[in-house]
């Protein structure tokens, strides 16, 4: 009863978002929209740190569509001077900044029911979920893919664990705009395409394989 009551009070955009998950999803890699995203934050603590910017770009049918990209900056009271040198976002910079509520609405509308892809997804998803929680909203419903884990599905890479910089080097991806959310999202998108292509070469790759956390059996 309470949950029903609560549902009723969700903003319109969230209701629209929830509805999209009731439809049947396509089951092939080519027919799904992937949103590759990255967040820049004030730090690594889900509770106390805040999102400063979100950058994202979509892939459909193995094509990165620049016209379908996303880049926003957030106004946050929480601010730590020591992370500025990583992400370069000043508290009172020249960029147009949105409130966290506006930012979440825009982001939710942008992602829809697409598959979310990030390098070390867990962190970015948790940061978004924490922001949603502050707005009294539930967690994200999207399927997710971690390029770090996807990489481990490649032959001989099971036990490797690499950060984005190392993978860029391995896959020959130029590291422009590293540590801006949009720049990292773009780099991750290229990485995602390259890993996918390599996986396809190595085996008969199905859509569902992307979500299976393989390699763990071996670790256990």
């Amino acid at each position, binding site marked *: 009863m309470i949950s029903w009551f609560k549902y009723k009070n969700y903003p319109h955009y969230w209701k629209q978002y929830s509805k999209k998950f009731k439809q049947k999803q396509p089951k092939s890699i080519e027919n799904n929209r992937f949103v590759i995203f990255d967040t820049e934050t004030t730090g690594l603590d889900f509770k106390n740190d805040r999102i400063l910017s979100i950058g994202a770009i979509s892939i459909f049918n193995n094509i990165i569509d620049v016209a379908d990209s996303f880049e926003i900056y957030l106004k946050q009271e929480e601010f730590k001077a020591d992370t500025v040198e990583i992400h370069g976002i000043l508290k009172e910079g020249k960029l147009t900044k949105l409130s966290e509520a506006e930012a979440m609405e825009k982001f939710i509308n942008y992602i829809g029911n697409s598959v979310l892809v990030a390098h070390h997804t867990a962190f970015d998803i948790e940061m978004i979920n924490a922001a949603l929680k502050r707005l009294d909203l539930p967690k994200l419903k999207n399927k997710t893919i971690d390029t770090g884990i996807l990489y481990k599905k490649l032959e001989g890479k099971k036990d490797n664990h690499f950060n984005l910089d190392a993978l860029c080097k391995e896959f020959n991806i130029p590291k422009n705009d590293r540590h*801006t959310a949009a720049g990292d999202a773009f780099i991750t998108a290229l990485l995602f395409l390259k890993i996918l292509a390599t996986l396809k070469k190595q085996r008969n790759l199905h859509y569902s394989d992307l979500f299976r956390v393989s390699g763990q059996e071996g670790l256990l």
Partner: protein
Amino acid sequence: MKNTIAERIYDFLKNFPPFDVLDKDQLFKIASNVKVTYVEKDNFVFKQEESPHEHFYVVKDGAIGLYRGMDNEQILVDICDEGDIFGLRPLIQNDLYLMSAKANEESVLYAVSVEILKEIIETNDKVKKFLIASFSSNIKTPYAKGTNGQLFANIEILQTSNTSFTEIQSAEFTKNPVTTLKTSTIKEAAQIMSSKRVGSILIVEKNNPIGIITDKDLRSKIATGMVSIDESVTKIMSSPVKTYKQKITVAEAQISMIKNKITHLCITKDGTPNSKLIGVLSEHDIVVMHGNNPSLLIKKVNRAKDVNALKYIREKTSNLLLGYIEQNIPIIFISKIISEINEAITIKAIELSIEEMDKQPPVKFGWLALGSQGRKEQLLMTDQDNALVFEDVAPEKYQPTKQYFLQLAKKVTEKLNIVGFEYCPANMMASNPNWCLSLSEWKNQFSHWIKSPSEDAIMMCTIFFDYNLVFGDKKLVYGMSDSIYESIKSFEIFLNFLGRNALRNPPPIGFFRQFLVENDGAHKDHFDIKSRAMMPLVDAARLLTLSHQIKDKNNTISRFKKLTKIEPQNKDLYLSCIDSFRILLQFRTQQGLKNNDTGRYVDLNNLSKFEKLKLKGCFKPIKDVQELLNIRYNLAQMM
């Protein structure tokens, strides 16, 4: 809103043509609509004969090879690397891909929407010029490098030159087009069209064009039963019509037709639909115009009254050649046209000279072009090499006859010299008594060369065997050819000597890495493209056709073509020889035009990586065909 990704793409594209001439806003619009694709090594972006994609491609990282399939072989035509554009022409010309694009290494591509580019054509004159340049190669260009960034190189030429390119000539439209009133029925209009034998009819109101009906409308709307033939023409006409002023250029017309997806433009008095219709310009008119230039020149040659007119026409021909090379029109087509014009000029020079003589030639004779002219491979203006053969006469008449032809030949060579074909320094001309001979004298001469093949004799053979009758009696030339084959038959070792000659220039590359350059002399450190790359192919083709007794093939490419049929087991090799020869001929012509010389010596330092790669690609077949000769004629023993 900040768009970091689009900014990065913008920063990349702005370094490369044609993006470098775009306004900031225009380029940013393109950048923010780019689609990024990743192509694995050996995967195709598109394949030959496929319908065009909605995008053309810019290489961001990696390298894309463009391949043209010939029979079962994929021939690498071009390699596009960072910043190069490919796959644009088919989009603009609504044509299939002429080549396949395959990743030679893993590549990231930016796909750019052609629709956005089309919008920009309208507002950006420089881009428009670039497109004009790319349109001009609308004759299919299988071997031209028509798709990489160099396509844009000719913008400046188009801007500075105001002659000889059809693209910037005013389009010649059909005056007094067939018209009817809007009160006519479709049937009436169709009757007018068939009686006047036209494919389109304009609907006018007070002399102003309001619509057009074409054959296509009749086909798609009437023949299908969609509309009755008794309905008014207004039912099926396309309206409004696109109107232009009289001085619309061919390029503007082409762009307008492509942009509006139409095939006819109306020419009105002030260029608006509200003024008097004075003509119609169809797609067909443009096609005709493209092909028309050389034939117009030949017509002018035929009408020429003196040698100065010929000189003027030959100068025009050089412009035409320059234009063709810039436009990447296939070299085979170019050499055909230039040879035709050169021949027409020579014929006219002979005719003018005969008129100047006191009397008509006493007996039948033939004027022969020799060497590269004879093979129709001469594009640039070089020396004249020619000879004359006349019918056998009674001994007492020999001297006066010979004197007549020597005098005639002198007049002809003088005229050719004025036109721009310089005298042959070795005096290999019909005005030389040694090369102005009767048929039996020629037969003896050839027989002598063949049976005592000294080095000089072999050299003479390589020049004189490539003759082509320009003017005069065919039978005389057949007689000459027959005697050559007879002599060879009775003295087959001659072919081995010819073979040794063909191998005197080793394959031009040391292990495919280094070019062999001249060691001394005026052309030190230059690569002699004629003797090191082209002559080995010319010599090989000549030798092989002689050995098969093929008579009427005097051109290197047609010789190799014939050989593919006679020796199907070596078909692939001969086809690759053809490709190499085409590319080398085009290359030499380009070099010659660029440096205003014969193009023979190439300064390797001035070549781009791409040009070097392309040249090197030509050398493998040379090596292979030389090996074949070596084995076939057992030349190792003779060397």
